Every structure is written in structure tokens, then in C-alpha cells.
């Protein structure tokens, strides 16, 4: 089948090329618009208890969770200077006439909105619409608000997501701008000729264009997260170029063996094509696992990655043979570096002594390299999972600047506030009166219980105002709720009570991202009120759901991916030990990248060099994304190495010689392919969005570790030590396993 495709592509090379030109021209208008229908966020899910609770709080208590935040400043006027206050009032005048706006709160409503340290005022505007719709509405608001003599910075959910979209798009352009030229230089180093070097980049680029156009169309029918764009693009570029590299190098090898152009293409197709196909399949096993998560961000990376890998695969298996058939020997035109093709003995100059050295002293290699790998992985043990806030953006962006002011001068996002809604069992008629004695009594019991939960510093509600008050006194206090003059109590009566429902705000000094806060949410959720229901919402609650959902399932998915991969490799290599070694080494590579992530992004090492603010946590989806991506990629290299070893072993039956030969024959190509991927991934370290930066770095480190320590040293050393056990397969298993040639 694969050979048939190759033959077809060679015979109908101009038709195939023309078809691809049409496809690429067709994709051109759409690929740059890939993000047009992508949605902001995507870390949450409608079925999460926290999201359900948010809906209850919105419907029953009119709690608005989405706000646009204005930060007004003046160099001289203090916030309560009538000129300052007047300018603020002018700026927000008429905003509440919009149906999309629930309220506008200024420092004149709550003096806490005036900074104690500078001439700064924080004004919040609560929105009645969802985040998706708010981005467009934000532009209306920006046009409406005239800050006059005051300085104005706009932040809050819609502004942050607008900037995340802008930064993501900018990151993508920057990543592509950096990645393609550098990748071409690496290709030049590998191939030595300009045409051969440009070819993989061009074919890879064509694949990415097609893939992004697919994402554009898919995102109109399926909810896809804007965060997926960069990752999908990164994978598309890296993998697309890798496939083309494998293909081109094999074609050159076949030409050198004296085959005709067409035969060389077909031979390359049947060998490298199979490697590429198998590589794509192993990558897809990992990436498809993302689709099983009920979180849009991961699902969309999974879907997007499948689209670009599929496009890259298609380009490699159809466009590449067609172009190579047309180019023929011209692929070696414009030589800029001396010849050092993969099949030349002299080119083994580095890999031969290395492999011989490893074969002579396997334990001396294995112990220190394994120790290094384990040491790299050690920081992963202190991994703390969390979610993103505005600090993932660079401080050059307006919404981040506003967020920083709110954090530094108003204590935003440093403490946790968990909104807990209490809905009455009977919410009709007089029974729904929140100031009725029975309801106040139940609420009072809940309020006191919430105060006792470990980690809670304070509970705010209409029944937590004074510890010496009991339900009777609260009933008295709320006989005329409109007559309450106390600012806090009056605000609570207006904003945290509705017929049939009472809102509690549970305060904690714990940071919203800390695991301890998830424990707090879990403990609150365990409370059963004497009647009615409790609904636990808030950022900490949503993080709890995200982590619970992801990590409740992740170990099983990891287990399943490991098992499927193990079985596939056992089928391919007819060994019990080799697949086990492959899987274990892959896991080591992944753990090393986790360790690096924690060391850099959680603990903040190199934050100055890499220009980011330490997150203090690892974004909860990152380990999963990296696992899915790295597992497939590392396995590609493992398969390529083992195939060469197995090929030699079949021919010679000499384990030590086979391992050495496998390493020698695959070393350059694996290094070249991995270098490109490392460069593409590392180019995303320049990204403004810290999550993208972290993925780039995590991936770059994992691939680097994989091709240096793991494939070049640890894997051959283990195989040398295992000796004949490498190829051990119980007879009964040998009988039942189907035969698959590993001629890749």
C-alpha cells in the first residue's frame, strides 16, 4: 500500500505537485486566520461542579464573575480630590445603560477602591455576558470611556484574554520567523546542499499551512482554545521538517547506492515512508490521548495536533516523493558544505568511537548518566499544580500592567476568596425570604461551620458580621435591611442575598494556586447543610476541578499509552526487554523535562534570562501536554535506533556489534532531526505567553536529553549489559504474536 502510494506519486508527480500547489494556495488565505474562531481560555468544563455552582450563583444570586477593571491614575490629584472623583464619574457615566453591564463600582461606592499608596483608583464593571462575547463588547467600552485628565489602564478577564490572543498570535509569528531559518541552517549542516536543506523546510511548511487551514475550518464547528495554536504550530513545524528530513536523507542514500531517481524515491518511500508512518502513529497515540480529556484546551491541542501531523504525514508521503522525483539528482545541487552523508564510513567518525566506548564500559556510562537523569527529574517531586493568571503575559501589555497594579496596591490574586452559595430547600413565597428566622438560623449554622474549616481566615456573609450575634440578633438587624448604614453590611444585603439564596465569601490566606487551597475547597464541598444545598464556586474551586479531572484520569491514560506502546514495540521488535527499556527511558526523558519545568517555571531559576515571572506552580495542563508530545517524539527516535540495531542483529546475531552499528547508523539523522525539533521548540522560549514558553522549553529539554543522554548513552549501555536478553521472547509469545517486519 505504502509502496503503491510512492509509485503513484512518482508516476503522477506533476499532478501530485499541482494538487499540492492548489491545496497550499487554497490554505494560504485561511492558515493565517487559524485563530479567528479559537476561543479564549478552555481550561474549564461545563460539567465541573465549580462551573455548575457558578451558574447557580449567577442565576440565584446574580453574582457576576466576569469584570472589566479600570485603573485610573493622576500624578498629583488624590483619589478623593473632587477633580479626580469627578473625572472618574464622567468616565463611567452611562455605562450602566448597557444591558451587558450589571454594575459599575468606583471608589465612591467603596473607599477600598482607592489606593493607600498612590493616586490610583480601581473601578470594576461587572458583565452579564460570557467571556466569548465580552471581547467584542470590550471595544465598545473602550470607545465609551473617556478618562479625560486621568491616566487609564484597562484589565480584567476580557482585556486579559484579548491580550493573550494578541500575544499568542505574535508568539506564533515570532516562533515561525526564528524557527524556519535556523532549522534550514541545521538542515544545511546535515545535507550540505542548499536544495536538500530547503526542501524539508518547504514541505514541512506546506504541511503546517494545510494543518492550520484545517484548524481554521475545524474551529468553526468544534470549540477550540486559542492556547492550542502555538503548540499545534510548533508540532507542525518540528514534525513536518523531521519527516521530510528522514525522507530526503533516505532518498540521498538510495541515490548513492546507484539507484535510478524513480527507484530511489520508491525505495526511500518504502523504508523511510514506513518509518514516518510508524512515527506518526506513535506520536498520534500520545496526542490522541489528549482528546479524551474533558478540557477544551487539551482536547483542541489533541485535535489540532492530529490535523497538523496528518497534514505533515500526507505531505511527506505524497508531496515529498513527487518533488524528489522531479528534482532527482538536483537535490544535491548548490553544495555549501563538504559531503558527510549518512552512509559514508568516514562520517561515523564521532559515532564510532562513542559507540565503541559505550560498548566497552557500559556500567561506567550507565551509572553516571542515569544519575544525571534522575537528578534532573528530582525537582519534579516538588511539582505544584495550578492554573494561569495574568502573570503569564509580559508586563509590556496593558492588561498585565493593570493586573500588576491591582495585585500590588489592592492585594488582588494573593489571597483566596471562595464564593459559596446556599440555596434554600424551599425557594417559594415567604419560605424564600432570606431574612426569615429559619433561613437566617440555617445560614448562621453554615457560616459558623465554614469559619471552622481549616485554612479559613474569615467568612463574609449577612450572618457572619459579628461573632457575638446569634440568629435572633440578625433577625432584628434585618427587620429593615434597607436601613442598615454600615458599609459592609449594607453592601452584603444588596449584593449577597436574594430570595431563596444567601452567599458566603470564604477567605483564606492560602494562595489560590496552592494545593492546600484545593484541600480547602474539598473540605468545604464535604459540608452538608441541614436543608438546601451549598454551591462552591471561585477560581480555587475551578482549579480544584481542573486538577481533579485531569489527574484523576491522567495516570490511567499514561498507563494505557505505556501499555499500548509497549505492546506495539514488542510486536515490532519481538522482544520483551527492549520495549520495556524503551518505555522506561521515555519516561525518564519526560521526568527530566518535568524536573526542568519545576526548576525554571515553578521555582523561578533563570527567570531573568528567560524574561518571565515565576508562576510558583506548574500550569496543570503542562505535564499532560508534554507527556503526550514528548512520548511520541522520543519514541520516534527510539524506534529509529532500535530498528537499525535489530536490522544489524538479524544480519549478524552479534548483540554488541549490532548495538554499536545501530548507534552509528542512526546517530546523525536522529541528532539532526532532534536538533531541528529542539530549535523549533526553543524558539518558543522567546514567546511572550509564559505557558507557551514553558512548553517550548520543556519540549526542547526533553528532546535534547533524549537524544544526548538517553539514545546516545543510556540506551546502548543497557542493551550492551542486557546482552542476549535484549532479544528474549518466550516461545509461546513468539507463536501468538503476528509477524511485522521492522524494516524501517
Amino acid at each position, binding site marked *: 500500500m505504502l509502496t503503491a502510494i510512492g509509485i503513484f506519486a512518482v508516476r503522477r508527480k506533476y499532478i501530485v505537485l499541482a494538487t499540492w500547489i492548489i491545496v497550499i494556495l487554497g490554505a494560504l488565505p485561511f492558515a493565517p486566520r487559524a485563530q479567528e474562531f479559537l476561543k479564549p481560555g478552555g481550561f474549564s468544563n461545563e460539567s465541573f461542579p465549580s462551573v455548575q455552582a457558578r451558574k447557580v450563583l449567577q442565576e440565584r444570586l446574580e453574582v457576576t464573575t466576569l469584570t472589566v477593571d479600570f485603573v485610573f491614575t493622576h500624578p498629583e490629584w488624590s483619589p478623593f480630590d473632587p477633580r479626580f472623583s469627578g473625572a472618574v464619574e464622567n468616565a463611567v457615566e452611562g455605562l450602566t445603560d448597557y444591558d451587558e453591564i450589571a454594575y459599575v463600582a468606583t471608589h465612591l461606592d467603596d473607599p477600598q477602591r482607592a489606593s493607600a499608596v498612590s493616586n490610583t483608583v480601581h473601578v470594576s464593571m461587572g458583565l452579564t455576558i460570557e467571556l466569548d462575547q465580552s471581547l467584542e463588547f470590550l471595544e465598545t467600552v473602550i470607545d465609551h470611556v473617556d478618562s479625560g485628565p486621568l491616566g487609564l489602564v484597562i484589565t480584567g478577564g476580557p482585556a486579559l484574554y484579548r491580550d493573550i490572543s494578541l500575544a499568542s498570535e505574535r508568539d506564533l509569528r515570532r516562533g515561525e520567523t526564528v524557527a524556519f531559518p535556523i532549522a534550514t541552517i541545521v538542515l544545511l549542516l546535515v545535507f550540505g546542499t542548499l536544495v536538500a536543506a530547503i526542501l524539508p523546510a518547504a514541505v514541512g511548511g506546506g504541511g503546517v499551512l494545510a494543518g492550520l487551514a484545517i484548524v481554521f475550518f475545524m474551529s468553526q464547528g468544534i470549540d477550540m482554545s486559542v492556547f492550542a495554536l502555538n503548540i499545534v504550530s510548533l508540532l507542525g513545524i518540528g514534525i513536518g521538517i523531521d519527516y521530510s528530513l528522514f525522507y530526503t536523507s533516505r532518498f540521498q542514500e538510495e541515490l548513492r547506492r546507484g539507484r535510478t531517481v524513480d527507484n530511489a524515491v520508491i525505495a526511500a518511500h518504502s523504508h523511510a515512508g514506513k518509518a514516518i508512518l510508524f512515527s506518526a502513529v506513535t506520536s498520534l497515540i500520545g496526542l490522541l490521548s489528549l482528546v479524551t480529556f474533558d478540557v477544551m484546551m487539551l482536547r483542541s491541542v489533541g485535535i489540532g495536533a492530529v490535523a497538523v501531523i496528518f497534514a505533515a504525514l500526507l505531505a511527506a508521503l505524497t508531496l515529498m516523493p513527487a518533488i524528489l522525483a522531479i528534482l532527482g539528482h538536483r537535490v544535491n545541487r548548490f553544495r555549501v558544505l563538504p559531503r558527510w552523508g549518512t552512509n559514508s564510513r568516514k562520517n561515523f567518525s564521532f559515532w564510532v568511537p562513542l559507540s565503541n566506548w559505550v560498548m566497552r564500559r557500559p556500567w561506567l556510562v550507565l551509572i553516571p548518566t542515569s544519575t544525571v537523569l534522575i537528578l534532573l527529574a528530582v525537582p519534579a517531586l516538588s511539582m505544584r499544580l495550578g492554573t494561569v493568571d495574568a502573570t503569564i503575559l509580559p508586563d509590556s501589555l496593558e492588561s498585565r500592567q493593570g493586573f500588576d497594579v491591582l495585585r500590588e496596591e489592592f492585594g488582588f490574586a494573593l489571597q483566596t476568596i471562595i464564593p459559596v452559595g446556599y440555596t434554600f430547600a424551599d425557594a417559594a413565597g415567604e419560605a424564600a425570604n432570606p431574612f426569615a428566622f429559619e433561613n437566617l438560623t440555617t445560614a448562621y449554622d453554615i457560616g459558623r461551620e465554614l469559619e471552622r474549616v481549616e485554612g479559613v481566615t474569615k467568612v463574609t456573609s449577612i450572618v457572619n458580621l459579628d461573632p*457575638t450575634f446569634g440568629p435572633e440578633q440578625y433577625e432584628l438587624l434585618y427587620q429593615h435591611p434597607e436601613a442598615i448604614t454600615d458599609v459592609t453590611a449594607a453592601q452584603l444585603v444588596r449584593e449577597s442575598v436574594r430570595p431563596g439564596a444567601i452567599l458566603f465569601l470564604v477567605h483564606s490566606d492560602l494562595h489560590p494556586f496552592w494545593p492546600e487551597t484545593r484541600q480547602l475547597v474539598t473540605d468545604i464541598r464535604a459540608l452538608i447543610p441541614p436543608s438546601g444545598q451549598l454551591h462552591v464556586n471561585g477560581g480555587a474551586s475551578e482549579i480544584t476541578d481542573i486538577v481533579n479531572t485531569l489527574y484523576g484520569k491522567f495516570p490511567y491514560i499514561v498507563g494505557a499509552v505505556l501499555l499500548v506502546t509497549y505492546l506495539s514495540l514488542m510486536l515490532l521488535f519481538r522482544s520483551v526487554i527492549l520495549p520495556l527499556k524503551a518505555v522506561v527511558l521515555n519516561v525518564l526523558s519526560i521526568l527530566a523535562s518535568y524536573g526542568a519545568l519545576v526548576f525554571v517555571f515553578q521555582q523561578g531559576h533563570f527567570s531573568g534570562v528567560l524574561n518571565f515571572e515565576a508562576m510558583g506552580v506548574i500550569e496543570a495542563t503542562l505535564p499532560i501536554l508534554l507527556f503526550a508530545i514528548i512520548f511520541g517524539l522520543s519514541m520516534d527516535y527510539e524506534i529509529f535506533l532500535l530498528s537499525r540495531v535489530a536490522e544489524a542483529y538479524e544480519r549478524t546475531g552479534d548483540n554488541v556489534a549490532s548495538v554499536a552499528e545501530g548507534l552509528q547508523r542512526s546517530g546523525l539523522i536522529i541528532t539532526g532531526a532532534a536538533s531541528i525539533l529542539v530549535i523549533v521548540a526553543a524558539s518558543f522560549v522567546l514567546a511572550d505567553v509564559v505557558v507557551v514558553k514553558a512548553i517550548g522549553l520543556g519540549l526542547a529539554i526533553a528532546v535534547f536529553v533524549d537524544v544526548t543522554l538517553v539514545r546516545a548513552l543510556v540506551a546502548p549501555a543497557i542493551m550492551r549489559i542486557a546482552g542476549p536478553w535484549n532479544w528474549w521472547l518466550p516461545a509461546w509469545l513468539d507463536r501468538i504474536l503476528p509477524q511485522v517486519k521492522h524494516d524501517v
Partner: protein
Amino acid sequence: MLLTLLATVGCVKSAEQRDVTTGAIPNPTATPAPVSFPQDEQAHDSRLEWWYHSGHLESESGREFGFHFVVFKSDDGLSEPNLVAQLGLLDLETGKHYDLSRAEAGFRSSGDSELSIEIANWVYGIGGRPGSHGFAVTTDEVSMKLSLTAASPVMLHNEIGWIPSEAGASYYYSWPRQDAVGLLILDGERIGLTGTGWFDHQWGDFFVLGKPAGWQWFAIQLDDGGSLMITEARGIDGVMVDTYGTYMSTEGEAKILRQESGGIELTATGEWTSPTTDATYPSGWTLRIDSLDLSLTLEPVIKNQEVQSGLPAVSAYWEGKARASGHQNGEPITANAYAELSGYVDPGPIEWMQR
């Protein structure tokens, strides 16, 4: 190792479902501690606190002024306390009443025995010596610095300075006579002032309720040197719940006055409706206290001395200079007074309750 990491990194202890304990009982109200000086002149860690000055001032040329200056501190325990300072200044020559305020979030103070509170660009100071205070107020219209020093013993209300109520209890004491000296700059004119002030300090975990709840309060400085505080409090249903007061003689002897034992009778003789808030306030009173053999007629020197600046509309109140005349022990007597009328502004409706 990977699976172990994944199993531990995402997990929190599962919590057993548990019923909310019913019948929770409130914390007991703390037994009031004796008010002591100078510590209790300073700020307290309480929901509400105010330092309140009023008084009667005169320039060298005999130009008369009335003033009230107050600093409110409210603290919900969640964030920095909110501070609001108000100055009500009445110029009897022009009949003009100035209603000025400043607000600030965050309580900044310095020193243990002396306290300096900044509210925007206004400063309020409490000296180390009990009964010594001062403030400096600067606005475009008015600049005023006033220094006040106790000229009488302290007046602890309700014997120990502790007032329980249905909306929480508070500490409450007064310096009923303070010598005042200061400088006023009004429309560019510098005016030296002297006079007599009254100081109230109240703090505690209590709530101030608006209409129909509220109070009428009077600080009366009798011209024989005696001082009298009278409060009539209305409960949450608008019904008068308590009338109490404290009388301090010229010699500094305090006498606690209670409705039930002292026969206090306060009657409004007129009313005035604010053109700004539409609130109708009592305006003019007769006061009879049997235990002091005292009867007084009080009249505000001008009707419009409503204070609303810096507070929510529902918290607007009337705070004004009044003159009193009458008899005590059969002898004619006159007095300067300040009256405070709270809980007369109709609170706006709560929007969700209207649906």
C-alpha cells in the same frame, strides 16, 4: 516513578461528607473592661469608632462660629479600615454652613501615646495627655487648625462608659469641656479663634441603623459650668427604646440620668425638611429632667445644618449648633448646645427587594 508522581501531584485528601452542626451559638459578649487613659483615647480594633468634636468659637472681634469635626473609622476585618473625616462649620455672621469631608482607605498612625491620623490631606491628632486633641483641615474654601485641651474631668456614660444596645455594644466617654484655640482661614481672611469644645469618643462592635432607627443627641454646656449629655434612641422598629444621659456639675461630679429613674422628657417643638435629602428633622425642643430640676428650650441657631458630605445618602444626619435657655432649681439658665439627629433620611429601596 511517573505514575507515583502523577498520583501524588494532583491529589488532595478526600474529605468525608459531614453534616453542618446545627444550633451554633454566638460567642459571648466580652465583659466590658474599664476605660483607661491615655490608652483608650487611641484607636481600637473594633467595627466602628469615632472621635467627635463640637464646640462654640469666637474671634477676637466677637464673630461667632460653631463647628463639629469627626473622624469615623469603620473596619470589617477584611481590608484596611475606611476613614471618613467631616467638618461642619457654621459662620453665624453670614449664616453659612460649610459641609466638608475627606475619605481614605487605610489607617496610618504614629506613636503609642500619641496618634496622628491622616485622612487625605487632613490630619487629626490625639495627644499623649488625656483630653488633648487637634485637627488641621485644608480645603479650597476653608482652612482650619484647632487645638483642644480638656478643661473638665472625663465623663463616662452609663457609669463605666459602656452602652449596650440591640445592635451591639460600645464604649462611650466624653470630655465635656475642652479649651479650644485655633486659626481659621475663610475666603482668605485669617481669623484667630478661642472657645469651648465637647469631645465624644465611641467604639465597639456595633451597627448604626438608619431610619426608622436613629437617635437625638444633645451636648449641652450650661453657662454655670455644668455639662449635660442626653441621648434618645429609637430602636429598629422606630420606637423609642431608651433615653439616657450624664450630667457633670461645675465641680466635676457626674450623675447618670436614666429615663426610668430621672424623669427625662424630650419633646420636639418644630421640624425642618431638608431641601437636599427630603428628610424631615425635629427642629427645636423642650427638655425637662426632673432629677436635675432642669427645664430647657433648645433652638437651632439656623435650620439648615445637615451633614451629608463623605457619607452614603442614607447616612446623612443633622448636626448643629443650638442655643438653650430655661431654669434649673428655679434659677434662669442659658447654654450653648450641639444637637445630632440621626436616622431621618429615607433609605433608598434595595433593588432586588422591589422586584
